[in-house]
């Protein structure tokens, strides 16, 4: 074979090799894309199912909390009202009977109020501001501590899943404050800044070392829940200096 012929073959094979290399590259890219697409879909399905599971858990917890609240109300409030009504009806004095009738009407009102809370429909009708107000009023009237709400905006148009998670996280944060911190005052602030809309839950209770892992499991759960709706959960606390929770809402 002559050198010229050699060169020609080199050119032909180099061209074919290059074309083959590029074809292989493009085909493998398409295959990798398909593979990753399948993995991505699987991941998305998993995230979706986890999200649904979290929401279901939250709904159960809210129902449980509601049932506890109703039980307490039946025992402490309605039970007392009915006993008082019974005593009044036992009297022969007409004014006592009239008073008993009023008390009975009050008890009926309370029962109606409670019955509305038995399913989760109230979540649809209530907005976050109203919910926070209700919770703070409940805490204040039971005499646990002083409460206040400062709202720069109304959280009205929220998707149901976000509302459920926020309700549960706020509820749990307030329960934690009452159970563990013994505060004199709880302040909730709805504030908007560069990060977006935020809810601050602040108490002046005994606080704790938030860097310790033992105190973190419940908080981790709340953090995860906020993340499922695309939000953030931040907690700062120190012994004797109270606790501040910041919930950043998804944009």
């Amino acid at each position, binding site marked *: 074979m002559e050198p*010229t012929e050699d060169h*020609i073959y080199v*050119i032909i094979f*180099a*061209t074919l090799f290059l074309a083959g290399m*590029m074809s292989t*590259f*493009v085909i493998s*890219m398409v295959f990798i*894309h398909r593979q990753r697409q399948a993995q991505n879909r699987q991941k998305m399905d998993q995230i979706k199912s986890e999200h649904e599971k979290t929401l279901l858990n939250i709904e159960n917890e809210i129902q449980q909390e509601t049932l506890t609240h109703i039980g307490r109300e039946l025992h402490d409030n309605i039970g007392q009202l009915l006993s008082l009504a019974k005593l009044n009806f036992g009297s022969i004095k007409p004014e006592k009977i009239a008073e008993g009738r009023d008390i009975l009407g009050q008890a009926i009102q309370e029962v109606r109020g409670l019955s509305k809370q038995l399913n989760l429909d109230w979540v649809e009708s209530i907005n976050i501001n109203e919910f926070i107000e209700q919770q703070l009023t409940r805490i204040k009237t039971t005499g646990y501590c002083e409460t206040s709400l400062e709202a720069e905006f109304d959280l009205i148009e929220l998707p149901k899943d976000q509302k459920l998670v926020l309700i549960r996280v706020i509820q749990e944060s307030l329960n934690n404050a009452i159970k563990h911190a013994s505060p004199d005052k709880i302040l909730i602030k709805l504030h908007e800044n560069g990060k977006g809309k935020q809810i601050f839950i602040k108490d002046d209770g005994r606080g704790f070392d938030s860097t310790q892992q033992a105190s973190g499991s419940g908080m981790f759960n709340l953090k995860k829940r906020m993340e499922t709706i695309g939000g953030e959960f931040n907690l700062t606390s120190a012994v004797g200096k109270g606790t501040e929770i910041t919930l950043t809402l998804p944009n």
Partner: protein
Amino acid sequence: MVSQILQAIFHWFTFSTNLLLIIGVIFFIKLPKKKRVNTKYWLPFLILTFTVICEDFGIYTNFNFEFKKAVNAYLGNTEYPKFNLWFFNIARRQIGVILYLVLIQYWLQPAHKKYINWMIYGFIILAVILQVSGIEPLYFNQPIISAIGANVILIGSGLYFIEMITHDQYLESNPLRLVSFWQMTILMFTFSLNYISSVALMYLYIVNPVLGKALQEISYGMWLCTLGVLIMTISSPFLPGLFEKEPSYGTN
């Protein structure tokens, strides 16, 4: 002379490019005004028009010897006054490469766009240095600039493919139904095969003209495919069942 001009005009490559330009113009005119001002459509149209007009002007220079001779003399080439390589170098090897890089840039996410910007600046600086220093005069064959051009296009296409297999938006779509995928694939093939062709062409024309011509024909075919894919992009709104919505990051 007239028969030579006619022969050049009716050469299958010239004829096909002009036909593709007419088809491209028709589709572009038919596009709604909102789409016409979108980079996704006007940039391929600009490249198509630029390429075909340059091809036609290249043919014209071959029949206007005085003009060609004057330009060559101005550039300092008195040895080969018949060459019109200066025009080929400016149009296809330099401006053409930059236009295709801008096209690739359109499909990339903002984080990757800056790499294409650097490549464009680097390519311009190197091309100017190589030409001003006399290493690769404008009027003669420019293998180094051609190699750099082909490589930046390959790197740009590579960036697109990396994005295609990593970015969520691309992972949600079928690449075979994206015009951007076909654009990048054809560009990669065209520039690399053309590079081989341009490097070997001079040699093959001397030792084996038949093979040289065959290689040239492959090059022509690849350019037609490139122009075809540009028309496919312009006409994609008329074929909604064939193409998927592009996950692009263009400004409009």
